[in-house]
């Protein structure tokens, strides 16, 4: 066409002169990076966006400030639901200081009780000195009482660590595991049955029950992954539905002669054998047990799996970009199955902490709210093992402290639930927290994004 045979050094191709194959003249600066990036810009799916904002979105500062904000709002709630405070407001104009002081007393009192119930209670130390001797103090458990709040925090945190790790691990592979509850029940059934139905030597019995809890949960988790991999069934729907299925199955089987405790008409299993109990760590007066150590070990294990193993590399790849993972030869369905199997097992271990660690039996509501709390914990912990442990400890402390608070002040236990929810609310809304505390978002990334949007002419 317009090719110029006579001038071979400077022809212009009519087809697509936009991408000349010629080298850049040295003087010319390379084309701007934004322009080239923008052409490939893709809009991420909502789910992926959510995962990203959970995993990457919040800085540690935002998380801590979210907790602070939640505690402040919780304090206001405590103060303004307290009848004596409300009465004091009635006389606000006569004695304004009185109302404010009452409000402060109420909130502070509740939080102090909570602190004493979850971390350290100074009264327990003074109690030691009221004993005849230190020896007596040790033997009657007065010394243990000093550590009781921490022990209770650890005990409450243990199942949350397991279940939180379960949700977090699945998150990292791009799956929303809403089914920690069903996996908990799956694990609990096997664990409990092995606990009372089988007699084994002491140490082995503990181990077998723990493994049973893992396997029971893993089977339910595997089912979710298998269904997703083979039929494309969305894991959110499958896990939510399985929660109902397993909860009803649990209620049914606890009424059958094999699982119901003889002589009882309510839905409760026989007590598990004493040699299947998780060993206590700090003497008979404190409930903290080996389950806590196992939970910490699992957190370390999940960290290793995610960050230092080939399987974890695959999980993270599939979670971050399944399409690229597939192109690189990874099997996305295989990853889904495997990650749900492990996540299910971890949720199953949460049941071991409850059945073998504290309750020694299984009831139709043993699963409590662990399934939902696990999501909260994973969210707060930014789907990272250490974060999950810290978040679970916080929630464990809130729960342990909440019980103490309810006992010593008139504040209801549900306030802890409110605080938990507020933490999550604030964590899930980083702009809100940034607004409250007037933080500035690191602008580099934001600018880059607007650049990419606007610059693809």
């Amino acid at each position, binding site marked *: *066409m*317009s*090719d*110029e*045979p006579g001038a*071979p050094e*400077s*022809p*212009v*191709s*009519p*087809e*697509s*002169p*936009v*991408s*000349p*194959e*010629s*080298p*850049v*003249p040295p003087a010319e600066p*390379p*084309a701007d*990076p*934004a*322009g*080239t*990036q*923008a*052409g*490939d810009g*893709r809009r991420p799916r909502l789910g992926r966006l959510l995962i*990203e904002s959970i995993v*990457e979105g919040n800085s540690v500062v935002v998380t801590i400030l979210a907790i602070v904000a939640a505690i402040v709002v919780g304090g206001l709630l405590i103060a303004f639901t307290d009848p004596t405070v409300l009465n004091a407001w009635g006389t606000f104009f006569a004695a304004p200081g009185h109302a404010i002081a009452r409000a402060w007393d109420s909130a502070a009192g509740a939080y102090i009780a909570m602190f004493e119930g979850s971390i350290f209670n100074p009264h327990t130390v003074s109690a030691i000195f009221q004993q005849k001797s230190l020896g007596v103090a040790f033997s009657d458990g007065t010394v243990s009482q000093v550590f009781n709040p921490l022990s209770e925090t650890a005990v409450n945190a243990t199942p949350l660590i397991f279940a939180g790790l379960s949700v977090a691990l699945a998150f990292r592979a791009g799956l929303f595991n809403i089914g920690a509850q069903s996996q908990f029940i799956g694990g609990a059934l096997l664990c409990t049955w092995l606990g009372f139905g089988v007699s084994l030597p002491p140490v082995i019995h503990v181990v077998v029950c723990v493994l049973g809890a893992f396997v029971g949960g893993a089977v339910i988790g595997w089912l979710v992954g298998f269904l997703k991999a083979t039929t494309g069934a969305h894991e959110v729907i499958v896990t939510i539905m399985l929660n109902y299925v397993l909860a009803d199955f649990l209620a049914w089987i606890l009424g059958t002669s094999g699982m119901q405790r003889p002589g009882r008409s309510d839905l409760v299993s026989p007590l598990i054998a004493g040699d299947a109990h998780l060993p206590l760590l700090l003497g008979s007066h404190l409930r903290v047990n080996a389950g806590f150590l196992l939970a910490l070990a699992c957190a370390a294990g999940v960290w290793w799996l995610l960050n*230092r*193993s*080939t*399987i974890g*590399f*695959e999980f*993270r*790849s599939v979670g*971050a*970009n399944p*399409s*690229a*993972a*597939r*192109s*690189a*030869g*990874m099997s996305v369905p295989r990853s889904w199955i495997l990650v749900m199997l492990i996540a299910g097992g971890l949720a199953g271990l949460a049941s071991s902490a409850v059945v073998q660690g504290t309750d020694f039996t299984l009831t139709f509501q043993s699963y409590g709210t662990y399934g939902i709390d696990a999501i909260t914990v994973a969210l707060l912990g930014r789907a990272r093992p250490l974060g999950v442990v810290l978040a679970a400890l916080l929630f464990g402390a809130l729960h342990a402290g909440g019980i103490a608070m309810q006992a010593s002040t008139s504040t209801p236990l549900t306030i802890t639930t409110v605080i938990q929810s507020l933490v999550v609310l604030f964590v899930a809304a980083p702009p809100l927290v940034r607004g409250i505390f007037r933080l500035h978002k690191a602008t580099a990334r934001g*600018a*880059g994004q607007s*650049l990419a949007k*606007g*610059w*693809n*002419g």
Partner: protein
Amino acid sequence: MRLELRGITKRYGALVANDAIDLTVEPGQIHALLGENGAGKTTLMNVLYGLTQPDDGEILADGQPITLRSPKDAIRVGLGMVHQHFMLVPVFTVAENVTLGAERSRGLGLLDRRGMRREVRELSERYGLRVDPDALIEELPVGVQQRVEIIKALVREAQVLILDEPTSVLTPGETNELFTIMRQLRADGRSIIFISHKLREVQEIADVITVIRRGQVMGQRPPSATDEELAALMVGRKVVLQVSKSPAAPGEVVLAVEGLSVPDDRGQLAVDGVSFSVRGGEILGVAGVQGNGQTELCEALMGLRPVSAGSVRLAGRDITAQTPRQRIRAGVGYIPEDRQADGLIADFSVADNMILDVYDRPPYAKGLALDLAASRANAIARVAQFDVRTTSVDTPAGTLSGGNQQKVILAREFGRDLQLLLACQPTRGLDVGSIEFVHRRIISERDQGVAVVIISAELDEVYALADRIAVMYEGRITGFRPPSVPVEELGMLMAGAVPTEAGPTEAGAGPARTDPAENETPEHTNNDSAQNDQSAGESA
């Protein structure tokens, strides 16, 4: 409406996307905005449509200054935009989409569905759009979806229509239809701003062509301007195609594809009984208008897309049923078409991305454990070797420029022992410097005896790299040609015209050629001719 932009300037940090741009669009005019990717065309249109605010300059409609803070303002003054990516709700009907955001009701909040449908039908008939108001968007071909976008703008009484790269998603036939519609709109007194980087289309349809480069207006030309003149304005210098490659030394057949048929996502045959083979040390360039089955072919060869018939053999072994991982292990390298979607994990570090398909092999894996030190050492070496511009190997790959992202992929794929390299649009969206780098690397792989398949929509690229050209049209290969084939002939093949004298035969590489002097594309040296003769001789 007479639309005037004066001194529009838009900066993003240090980058000046639009630098004092002046532009006047007369009523009843098709005004083409021509420029390379990244020249600033879309930014300018986003300014005009109220999506971004300019840092400087003013916009006048019929001589009156106007402020556009949002698309709503733009619509009110009579501007309509058809985006590159359509803004349609797939599960709604055409009429519902058209009225979305401009719903009319008959009181009591009832939608005036009948009125909506009537209006769509009227507009459709008036401009020959041929759109059924009751069709569901998701069931319509892309070209019709685009016409729905045009109707959307017309319903909102747009006097100036902005079409952002409208032909990039269209087949040649659909493009012609679009041009007919554009002419009718022009006859009706409406003006159109037509954004494109395709010279030929611009010359065909525009009344005035404004060329933009690096955010500046380089000049205005009538459509009668020559290709050379426009191209020179666009890229800022004479385009020189330099191919510095030695003759191919084809060896044994590495890839043999026999009667391959591949269905697309909708179950229709995207690749329809394709057969070809590629020898070691040879580059087969697959040319064709995008969307004629090249993407599906490439994915099928990589095992990413199931095939419905035919076989693929790699060095004699049937790999038709093998997984992508098995193919990677067998020495197939893959440069995917969409590097951000399929080639890289944007959140992962450069180092992680460089072991994305070898992470479970020594030395990067010891049993189940990753050897991060080995991965790091590998990444540092490859970053140096491939000149990847990154602050460190721990930088997330997504923050690199397109060219450097592509280098990361090349570094990863070329770090393995390859038998076959599948490169799909390997230089899409890259700057010229990166393009040259990628081309040199691909040629050096060929010289080491790797069989290479390049799939590219850029004819220049195919000419520059290929030792043999296959042309795809509607899922079939319409012909094999040597790289000395004239552009016109390739163009015919790409349009589906199968010349009678040379059918789509595998041995088409040589016999048609007689005289090296007929090499009409002067960018190809005599080396190419020699090499063609050689390969022809071998395949004979």
